[in-house]
């Protein structure tokens, strides 16, 4: 099996560092200056999010990932903070740019919504196109670094901090996990509830529309569907999402905050 932590580093570290260097001069406002959120719902962009939109209205506070922004706003739910961290230019779509071929294939196209005034925790690793689009949308940007290596033994995270003295967040592979880490490790959450954290797909979701379908087809040819992990409840995940799930479960185990259901938090 591929070492996905190493594969992720190989895939994005150089671009993340280059983006951070391009963004450093404007990364003056830190996420550390945001108000704290003692109890907060963290909303990721999984298929199950729709089932929780109504209940979110009773949440004490909401932090959402970039991809969930328009889904929340269209339902009349305004998040207290959005989070973006991916280094790819296509992420600008979540802030109003046209979707690229990837988003068209997966069907993850966002409806254009009014984002003005919404606070955005943005990683310096974000592509400059994403930064420009979020600024043009009128969002209120606060910055952090996405950790690249262990600051105790490596040099890359330390070099990010030298570019701009911002919190360096261990992102767990994806923006949902990064948003949850921000909530408890930077914004002081003692209790978090999770919605849309599926790390997978429902049984009837077409495999052709999953995020890594094309890469798995390249890798495994006609057998590409065998690369997916099947769960007892019928949901399934590609190897990358299964890794996200594993990493997240390990991080939750060691986290200094309670993770509860949305029902428990809004009771």
């Amino acid at each position, binding site marked *: 099996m591929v070492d996905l932590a190493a594969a992720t580093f190989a*895939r994005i570290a150089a671009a993340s560092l280059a983006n951070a260097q391009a963004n450093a001069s404007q990364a003056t406002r830190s996420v550390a200056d945001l108000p704290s959120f003692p109890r907060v719902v963290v909303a990721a962009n999984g298929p199950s999010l729709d089932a929780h939109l109504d209940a979110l209205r009773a949440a004490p506070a909401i932090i959402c990932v970039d991809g969930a922004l328009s889904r929340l706003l269209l339902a009349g739910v305004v998040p207290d903070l959005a989070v973006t961290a991916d280094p790819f230019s296509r992420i600008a779509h979540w802030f109003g740019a046209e979707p690229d071929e990837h988003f068209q294939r997966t069907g993850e196209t966002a409806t254009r919504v009014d984002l003005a005034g919404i606070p955005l925790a943005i990683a310096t690793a974000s592509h400059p196109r994403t930064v420009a689009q979020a600024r043009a949308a009128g969002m209120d940007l606060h910055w952090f670094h996405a950790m690249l290596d262990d600051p105790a033994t490596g040099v890359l995270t330390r070099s990010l901090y030298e570019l701009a003295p911002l919190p360096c967040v*261990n992102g767990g592979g994806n923006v949902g996990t990064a948003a949850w880490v921000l909530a408890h490790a*930077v914004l002081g959450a003692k209790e978090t509830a999770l919605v849309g954290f599926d790390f997978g797909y429902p049984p009837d979701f077409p495999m052709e529309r999953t995020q890594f379908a094309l890469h798995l087809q390249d890798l495994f040819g006609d057998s590409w569907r065998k690369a997916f992990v099947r769960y007892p409840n019928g949901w399934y995940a590609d190897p990358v999402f299964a890794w996200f799930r594993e990493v997240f479960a390990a991080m939750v185990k060691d986290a200094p905050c309670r993770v509860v259901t949305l029902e428990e938090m809004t009771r």
Partner: protein
Amino acid sequence: MTDYLRGNYPLDAAITEPATGDCNAFERAALARLGGSICFVAKAPAVWKGDG
């Protein structure tokens, strides 16, 4: 990697690159496209604020 191991001095012997099939190169390229969009650093703290 073989470039690093070759050294910086002339040799009389001819060096033949080990055969790597197209399949291996293809697989490496495909694998390089898998992975997350943010790093996960095992055993590192959840957040580092420049201390230590």
